[in-house]
């Protein structure tokens, strides 16, 4: 059973209490963007085997959305944090780097995938 601590209400929630929302930190592209940008935002996914940042909703609790840093290869949870950020906070990054020294952040400030 996956257990995440909701950063909004502080409850340690079982996954049965939560709804998964898939990849976090997507930069939205809407009217005025190119079809490629819109497709990448809408459909293309990192789907990494390893460190992943995800959206979750504490559906059967406080109802708030929050974000989680998790390893998809081992199901280890690195931490959760509020959703009102465009990048993971420094303490989460530090915790991931301590556990996964080879891991490199794979986002750029403009929201594009790294080359």
């Amino acid at each position, binding site marked *: 059973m996956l257990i995440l601590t909701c950063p909004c209400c502080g409850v340690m929630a079982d996954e*049965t209490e939560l709804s998964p929302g898939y990849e976090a930190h997507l930069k939205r592209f809407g009217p005025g963007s190119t079809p490629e940008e819109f497709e990448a935002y809408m*459909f293309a*996914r990192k*789907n*990494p*085997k390893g460190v992943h940042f995800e959206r979750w909703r504490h559906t059967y609790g406080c109802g708030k959305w929050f974000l989680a840093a998790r390893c*998809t290869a081992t199901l280890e949870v690195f931490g959760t944090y509020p959703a009102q950020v465009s990048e993971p906070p420094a303490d989460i990054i530090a915790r991931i780097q301590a556990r996964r020294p080879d891991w490199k952040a794979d986002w750029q400030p403009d929201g594009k995938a790294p080359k």
Partner: protein
Amino acid sequence: MKRYSVFAIAREAARYHMGWERAWASPEPRASYDAIIVGAGGHGLATAYYLGKNHGITNVAVVEKGWLGGGNTGRNTTIIRSNYLQDPSAAIYEKARSLYETLSQELNYNVMFSPRGLLMLGQTHHEVRGYLRTVHANALQGVQTEWISPQRVKELVPIINIDGPRYPVLGALYQARGGTARHDAVAWGYARACSAMGMHIIQNCEVQGVRSENGTVTGIDTSRGFIGCRKLGMVVAGHSGQLAEMAGFRLPIEAVALQALVSEPIKPCMDVVVMANTVHGYMSQSDKGEMVIGGGTDGFNNYTQRGSFHHIEETLRALVETFPMISRLKMLRQWGGIVDMTGDRSPLISKTPLANCFINCGWGTGGFKAIPGSGWAMAELMAKGEPGPLAEDFSMWRFKEGRFIDESVAAGVAH
């Protein structure tokens, strides 16, 4: 390749079964091949087989990081059906189902295809309307299905409870020619036939990188060194995202865990496959007598090949209402597989941004039933460089173009 036959059995019986040869060879990889298929599961091996049989390309290697058929090919619930709503899906799944009918004879390998019939229960009025629509669509597509009454369901499945308090059985979508097959044998049979055509099946060989020049694929780096190729086919299901990353593009896919479980073996009690999509469970009885049960997927990215325990509980709780007699059954084994889910729950059989690199993935929760049709279509795509009629709708660019093949809303599938 020595043919398997009743005479071969008699011959071997007379000499203590000392003369059976290995079903497929394990050669060292050559420096390069005309085509490399990554992934020796059912889909990869079927692709290689039809490349040789339909298109005469036999300088082919199938590389596999683990062992042959050790991924989702060995982890599914072996159900075969083609009662899909959308035309492209019905076409490729029906092609696969019809190829399964003669696969044992064609491969000279008993894949134990058992067209025992398949029911998809309608347990809400909404579901009934959806299935009636599917029946009409199937009639136009040339897929033989029918809508049957609850009484007929009870005749076909005596152990079913059609008067459940929450979800009574209101009828069923019945595909008489659907059924099951022996999943491992499908991979083994294709592997044996590929090996007999001179193809190389290279196990324990993990792809670590994809090399290209001027936007055209030139080969793959593997745990056993570089192997060159003119064409590359990626057929790796759950790990498609990793391989695409190596080739420099992203896919509209999330990898999640799907679970299945089997009970202790019991006497024959159900000779059809029953799917109950409203309550998220499906069940058939194996030849050994185990009840083979599948349920829903987890909703988060996962590569661990094990799923969340509460899904087992949900699946069994739902099935116990519909099949009260299984409430006392002990469950023997449970396992998970990593399925590659696209946004519209339909697969990709597609060219990629890298020239001469092709991808076949996204089968999600329904890959096993598609193996022969998928291999057929992928082989055509790889041989000709352009998709044939079976594959043309499954391009990875359909998302940009808005041409979804929307089986998730069509509810032809359980997830």
